[in-house]
């Protein structure tokens, strides 16, 4: 209640229609200038760069026709590739959710030698070309690699197996989880932990029942972003995946294969399938979050 009112206003739904000279119906009046130009730039740019090209994608996929689209969607190879992509991305996002949260916690809460270096390294997957990452990871986790050799001795094969896909996707998705959680952890009120302790909660109980739930929304966002990114990842995966059909063939590779067959409609159709699934995932998580925010704050 002490928050500046503008923030409260931002959380409330848009105004209903009403009389008055300052009203335009679909937006709340504001004295702050620049609405027209900035929204214009935003929509224009989004339209040109994102919407029109994606519309072209969808349009091209319709050339396939509904029946063929349906056949493609049911094709075991397509299904297997989608399963591999989403499965690996899910596992990787799960790994990232756990370890990314741990990394974020350690980076925010503790002071230790090398912290800044680790903090910097987290951005690495954004900077390193995915192909280089894939090559480096394949070298590292291959049977002769620094990590692959000891793992192989334990009978664990990472590179050229589905596990390799997961490794590449962990690499690619980690910054999304860490960077989403870091500011939220920094914001956690120390007094919550103290309050829980003064109420008799042991540390583990405090972490499980107080800290974890308060991180949940950001956690979900990080997870969703890592997942969405992982599903589409191509460059780093093909070097380490093995690419065997039905086993370690990812959906983006399937797109490439369709393209090699000059089958644009099928390629775009697979693309549209992936896009709609991951967009739906993102949307669901966003809606859940919006619902959760409303649940926690809306006065009744």
């Amino acid at each position, binding site marked *: 209640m002490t928050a500046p009112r503008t923030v409260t206003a931002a959380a409330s739904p848009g105004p209903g229609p009403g009389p008055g000279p300052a009203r335009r119906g679909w937006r709340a009046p504001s004295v702050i200038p620049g609405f027209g130009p900035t929204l214009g730039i935003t929509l224009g740019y989004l339209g040109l760069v994102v919407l029109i090209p994606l519309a072209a994608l969808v349009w091209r996929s319709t050339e396939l026709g509904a029946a063929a689209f349906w056949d493609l969607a049911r094709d075991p190879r397509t299904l297997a590739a989608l399963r591999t992509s989403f499965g690996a991305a899910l596992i990787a996002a799960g790994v990232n959710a756990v370890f990314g949260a741990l990394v974020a916690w350690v980076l925010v809460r503790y002071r230790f030698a090398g912290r800044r270096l680790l903090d910097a390294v987290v951005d690495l997957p954004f900077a390193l070309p995915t192909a280089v990452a894939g090559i480096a990871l394949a070298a590292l986790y291959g049977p002769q690699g620094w990590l692959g050799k000891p793992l192989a001795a334990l009978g664990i094969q990472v590179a050229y197996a589905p596990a390799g896909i997961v490794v590449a996707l962990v690499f690619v998705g980690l910054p999304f989880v860490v960077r989403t959680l870091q500011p939220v952890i920094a914001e956690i009120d120390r007094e919550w932990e103290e309050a829980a302790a003064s109420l008799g909660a*042991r540390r583990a109980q405090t972490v499980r029942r107080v800290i974890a739930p*308060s991180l949940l929304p950001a956690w979900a966002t990080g997870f969703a972003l890592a997942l969405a990114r992982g599903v589409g990842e191509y460059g780093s995966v093909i070097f380490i995946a093995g690419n065997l059909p039905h086993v370690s063939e990812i959906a983006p590779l399937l797109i490439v294969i369709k393209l090699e067959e000059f089958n644009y409609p099928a390629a775009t159709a697979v693309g549209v399938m992936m896009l709609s699934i991951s967009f739906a995932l993102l949307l669901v998580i966003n809606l859940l979050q919006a619902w959760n925010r409303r649940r926690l*704050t809306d006065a009744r």
Partner: protein
Amino acid sequence: MDVRIDHVRKEFGRFAALDDTSLTIHDGELVALLGPSGSGKTTLLRVLAGLERPSAGRILFGDQDAASLSVQERNIGFVFQHYALFKHMTVLDNVAFGLSVCPARRRPPRAEIAARARRLLALVQIDGLDRRYPDQLSGGQRQRVALARALATDPRVLLLDEPFGALDARVRKDLRHWLRGFHDRTGHTTVFVTHDQDEALELADRVVVMNAGRVEQVADPDTLYDRPASPFVFAFIGDSSSLPATVRAGRLWVAGRALGPVPAADGPVRLFFRPHHARLADTGALVGRVVASRRQGDRRRLDVALRPDAPSDAPSDAPPDAPSDAAGPPHSADLPRPGDAPAASTPVEIDVATDAAPPVGASIRFDITRPSLFPAPAAPRRPIVVAPRPGTALAPPGPKPDRAHAAG
């Protein structure tokens, strides 16, 4: 069970936030920690709760040394200034938290926990809001949830850090009132922190005045208000004005005029008085001009600039060796000169009845019915004159004080 704080010291780096603090809190008492910002109030509370470890000294719960007890084991109810409610839990879950995390063998069954939490919510009079989340509550409601949550584990001591600090003036007043009643009904040993003297005086059985990491005075509200132990307490508790003054030959001189005989040794002193201990009188010893006037509740408060150079009409009982001119008594090099510039330039505050208030700009005369003298600054802090009880007002002989002003 009493709580004893025994020569506790708490350092942050080089800085001592608490400096040799001792205090006993009696069973069932409602104690206020009062002091300016940074005086160590929160630190003391946190040391009590076990959220900080003392650098030296001991905390005793009854006969038990608290040093070996973790926060969890102390069984303390702590209400944080900004409540620290768990945002993602409903009001009911917040209140039930303490019970639901206690070790399985002592934990009541689920239904019993919920029932107890509901009873507590009824106790703090916000039943019916169980299913809300903290962000859906007003400040005052949150305050009560925090209290209910702290009470759920049946704590030995209840600690509240500025429980009303974040609330509206009006809500603050209501809750203050409510908390006192609540304490009277339930009888928990309670310590609360505040920097609002009205709140401390109104609520607490005893008030601990803290300053710079030390306890300045511990007393009940009346004693604190009527017989402050130091200039700091005088100035901090209640409104007051202070003036440099001099005692010469058993008489008090202020702003170039003699006020009357005082039982104090000669030398520079500092005179303190409260606004309502001033009394307008045509024959008043102090002369000044009203520079501001404002409504304050049922009276008017005047800012009065003293005029050291105004001719004194008071019966001349100035010491014989004092010249009667504007310069006041002759000053020696080591004494501040009575009637010095500060006295004239910083106005003093006096209260008058609304229907008797002189307009701004008017020249007035007034007496001080109950002055307190403390040594001039940079000397030890004990008062050298305990102010006489009202009725023996320190004022030059004259007509009896108008009681309307004296008591107002």
